[in-house]
């Protein structure tokens, strides 16, 4: 329980791992734009090629990507069937009277499923190669300009930092409470789903109470260490935008440009 990795970060030393988190966030945004620009299934090959390239450079095994698709498998099947049934088309492949299987429907179903798969896989590439801490730092820096619109960029990053810090602590805590309740005769294993969910209440309530106490103590400790919000705060670890980052952004832009070019020309 203690060694649970947050998100799905896989530590590594690849070119992609070493990129500035801001670069990787920008790359992902451009990639998402790419997948949404594509209007025909054949052009999906360009974002697909980009994803494969990223995968090769990052040295992440394909297994991790497939794992990240697992939670959405039912959604995928559902979307696929829905489009298969409700897309209208001319080229009838199979006529069952009440419903016709058309070539257009098959194509559309495949196209939308592929888009979702590429989107999720691309987003996983970011979280697989970037540690949650680096991701938080990157987000804070990227969102900084929004502060003129009173967007709480620093507060958001600080909340994420603290949340990440306390996940293992709260895990330990819940385990302790669970044992304490079990030693008092609580039963967490038997009964149906509803009964089991209901039996979690004696764990959750103490966990909530202790979280509030922790929050209170942490706030006092932070204040004692001169915390006074994000104004005038510096960071020990400075994010550095290097040559590699520039190259990565340029390559991504090249992919985007070629996609637009191909779509306009064909």
């Amino acid at each position, binding site marked *: 329980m*203690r060694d649970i990795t947050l998100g799905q970060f896989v530590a590594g030393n690849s070119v992609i791992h070493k990129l500035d988190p801001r670069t990787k966030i920008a790359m992902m945004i451009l990639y998402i734009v790419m997948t949404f620009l594509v209007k025909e299934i054949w052009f999906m090959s360009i974002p697909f090629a980009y994803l494969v390239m990223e995968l090769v450079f990052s040295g992440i095994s394909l297994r991790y990507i497939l794992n990240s698709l697992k939670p959405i498998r039912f959604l995928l099947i559902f979307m696929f069937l829905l489009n298969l049934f409700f897309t209208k088309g001319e080229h009838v492949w199979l006529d069952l009277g009440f419903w016709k299987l058309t070539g257009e429907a098959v194509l559309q179903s495949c196209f939308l499923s592929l888009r979702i798969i590429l989107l999720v896989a691309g987003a996983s590439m970011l979280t697989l190669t970037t540690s949650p*801490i680096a991701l938080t730092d990157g987000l804070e820096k990227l969102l900084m300009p929004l502060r003129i619109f009173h967007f709480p960029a620093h507060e958001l990053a600080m909340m994420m*930092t*603290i949340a*990440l*810090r306390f996940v*293992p*602590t709260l895990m*330990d805590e819940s385990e302790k409470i669970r044992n304490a309740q079990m030693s008092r005769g609580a039963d967490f294993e038997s009964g149906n789903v509803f009964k089991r969910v209901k039996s979690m209440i004696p764990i959750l309530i103490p966990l909530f109470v202790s979280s509030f*106490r*922790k929050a209170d*103590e*942490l706030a*006092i*400790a*932070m*204040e*004692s*260490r*001169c*915390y*006074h919000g994000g104004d*005038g*705060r*510096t*960071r*020990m*670890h*400075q994010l550095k935008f290097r040559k590699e980052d520039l190259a990565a952004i340029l390559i991504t832009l090249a992919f985007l440009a070629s996609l637009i070019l191909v779509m306009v020309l064909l």
Partner: protein
Amino acid sequence: MIEFDHVTFQYEKALTPALTNIDLTIDKGEFVAIVGHNGSGKSTLAKHVNGLLLPTEGTVTVCGMQTSNEDDLLRIRQKVGMAFQNPDNQLVTTVVEEDVAFGPENLGIEPNEIRTRVDKALASVGMSDYATFAVHHLSGGQKQRIAIAGILALKPQILVLDEASAMLDPNGRAELLETVHKLHREGMTVLMVTQYMEETTGCDRIIVMNHGKIVLEGTPEEVFRHTDLLMESNLVPPETVSVRDALRSMGYALKDRSLTAEQLAEELCPLL
């Protein structure tokens, strides 16, 4: 360096004040222990030193600045580092060195300077090897030392420990105490709030609190002469002191300053 002038403090909705008319001066380089049982007001007193609590009456002055002056609060907190009871609830970030950097980052110090301070602070608590470790993999004593490193990175002049050893196992407590004594030898003014009397034998001065008042004050030798007064304040004197007193009542002439096991042994050996 720290001056309490007729300080009275009452928590909201409380019937009786937590501190009553406290007068106290702590000089530069002193190692002062504040002892008392639960609810004696010792933690309340400690929280006044860096302005976490403000006196209802009277004033607290730290390095010439009054804690009631909000403009000086940040400067006071930089001068007074404070470590708390629960080692888990005072570390802010996941990685050790980033947590130590938290304080200086708040002060807006240059990144390179922060790096030097962090390395130095980790070295002085003997945790340099753990710089890139995840905080939750450390033991209680190690976490508490990281908390102290985080305070040292602010370059404070006063270190306040608010029952910092209460949740540690005996090993962790020994680790912590050793670190604190080392810092004191290097010139740090230390104010240590504790329930454990045996931790106080190496201090310059002990302040015994009961019902929000100072009931006894003096060097360990002086304080442990009054074991009856300690008992009245619901405090148990260290076992070595009990042994000393028992031997005394049996007619052995032992000196006041034999407070630790080593000192007792030194005194007793010639008698054998």
